[in-house]
């Protein structure tokens, strides 16, 4: 079933892709192929392979339990949050919080996770920011 769903999504994606490709503006200085043709070919390959999944799906993969899947999605949400918070909160604070969260969700106790988060963040900051001189995000406190 999973493969069939993948196939249907793939077909929709391919159709959208080809449709978008037909909307690409032709330039006056075009070559015989133009900017549309190759993307359309790619869209067709995408669509054909997706049709194959619908017709001949593989055996069902092992999906994680609902709780585990939510775990992954929640971690992704935290990482998205990290991306946005980084320029605002600065490297050390946001990284410490994110690393702490990941460490906690990977099975560390709250105290262990807090120590791990702080260590990872400060460690990376010292190694890459101070020793190697990378420009990491500056927060309101300059680090």
């Amino acid at each position, binding site marked *: 079933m999973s493969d069939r769903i993948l196939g249907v999504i793939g077909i929709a994606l391919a159709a959208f*892709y080809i449709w978008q490709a037909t909307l690409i503006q032709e330039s006056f200085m075009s070559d015989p192929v133009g900017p549309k043709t190759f993307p359309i070919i790619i869209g067709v390959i995408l669509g054909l392979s997706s049709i194959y999944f619908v017709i001949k799906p593989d055996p069902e993969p092992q999906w994680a339990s609902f709780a*585990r899947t939510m775990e*992954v999605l929640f971690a992704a949400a935290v*990482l998205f949050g990290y991306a946005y918070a980084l320029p605002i909160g600065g490297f050390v604070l946001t*990284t410490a919080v994110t690393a702490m969260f990941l460490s906690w969700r*990977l099975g560390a106790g709250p105290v262990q996770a807090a120590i*791990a988060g702080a260590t990872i963040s400060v460690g990376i900051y010292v190694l*890459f920011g101070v020793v190697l001189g990378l420009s990491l995000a500056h927060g309101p406190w300059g680090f």
Partner: protein
Amino acid sequence: MDALSSLADGFAVALTFQNLLLALLGCFLGTIFGALPGLGPSNGVAILIPLAFTLGLPATPALILLTSVYYGAMYGGRISSILLNIPGDEPALMTTLDGYPMAQQGKAGEALALSGIASFVGSFFATWGLVFLAPQLVKVALLFGPAEYFALFTLAFATLGGIASRNQAKAAFSAALGVGIAMIGVDAQTGVPRFAFGEVHLYDGIDFLVAIVGLFAVSEVFIFLEHRGEEAHAQGASKMINRVTAPLSMLRKTAGTMGRSTVLGFLAGVLPGAGASLGSFIAYSVEKRVSDRNGTFGKGDPRGVAAPEAGNNAAAGGALVPMLALGVPGSGTTAVLLAMLLALNITPGPLLFQSNPDVVWGLIAALFIGNIILLIMNIPLVSLFVRVLLVPPKYLMPAVAMIAFVGVYGISGSTFDLVVMVLFGLGGWLLRKLDVPLVPVILGVLLGGQMEVNLRRELTISNGDWSALVDSWLSITLWGLAIVGFILPIIVGSFFRTNVGKGRSRESDDPD
């Protein structure tokens, strides 16, 4: 002889203090990446590429660092195979078959030493193969026009999904996805934006480093979160090591094995797409057929350890041949290395040997040096690496993830890139669950633009006549190989997987 004098110049480049230091660092980090279950050479190189960039390393030192990581990870993969029965990556899988039984018999030290020496033999001679074969391949490659390059890229896609994937349609899907992503951005030839949806950030296209780090490193973190608590416990592994030396009698017994496996592994590596998994598999299977007279393979036979290790390390060297000479990667990790080269504005292929000889030969010389460093590191210091296995993933993976973010943010300073990277991480996680191989996606993102450029160039020359794509014997041969390469795994692949699939402990789609 020409190659030898170029190699001597290469040694002059590689033997500078900075480059030696980077080789040492790369070998060390690589061994750790290889040893840790779940993190293979592709992940190791993917995480370190952005860092090499943000550190502002010039091309040659950056390449030396990353190929040392690559070779180091190929060495390191055996450590967890032997001690824990968990392959660090797919090529190390065959090593579990005899390596773990040896460890259970109290011969972990011998197995580690023997596999270290076999790894050295495999990659050392494969590097010689690279020295002599790559310049020859370059001569052929000089005959390439746009039509041939287009066919060659098709060949790379057709074979790369190949053996490691269960389903060729999924490999094609994955490649189309990658090439499709490569089309995002402003069309280089006409200047019109494509698939950008008015988003300014997308006008530059998707940076392949963002795609690579997301697909490999971030998705790995998600996999770990999903499998939390199921990791193998490495506790006690360090106690299993008695003395890390291989008796001379064992070396004498396995010398022939190492020789045969090196040749087989190297050939498997040179074939585009087959990579190190095939190298270790073929080496083990052939060795079993040739020398397993008493049925000792699978029960802790030293030859069963030497064969896959020599084979997969030789394949790692072999995979660099098409990558450097043709610009077509022979494996997942070389695809990542190719990304590195392109990002440094160095286009691999025949011209690389003429326009940047210092880069190529400095790199090859560094591989020789890296091998010697790895041999030294892997015999006396192996107990140090075993301790790394004791660091639980709950502390290790957050650090890996944060380093990946630092690397990408350091290059662009763009929040948008980080968001895209997490999206790729989620996508990678889903694709891995569905058994869609990730390497063709990467290759598509990398080579998609080049593929289109060559197609359009050829059709401009021929005034829009599509038959020009199959106009020369060379392009016809390449198309033929591509078709065979696409169909053959359907026949051979099931045999490969039923043999390799046994003992696979965890989902991993690292075909290298």
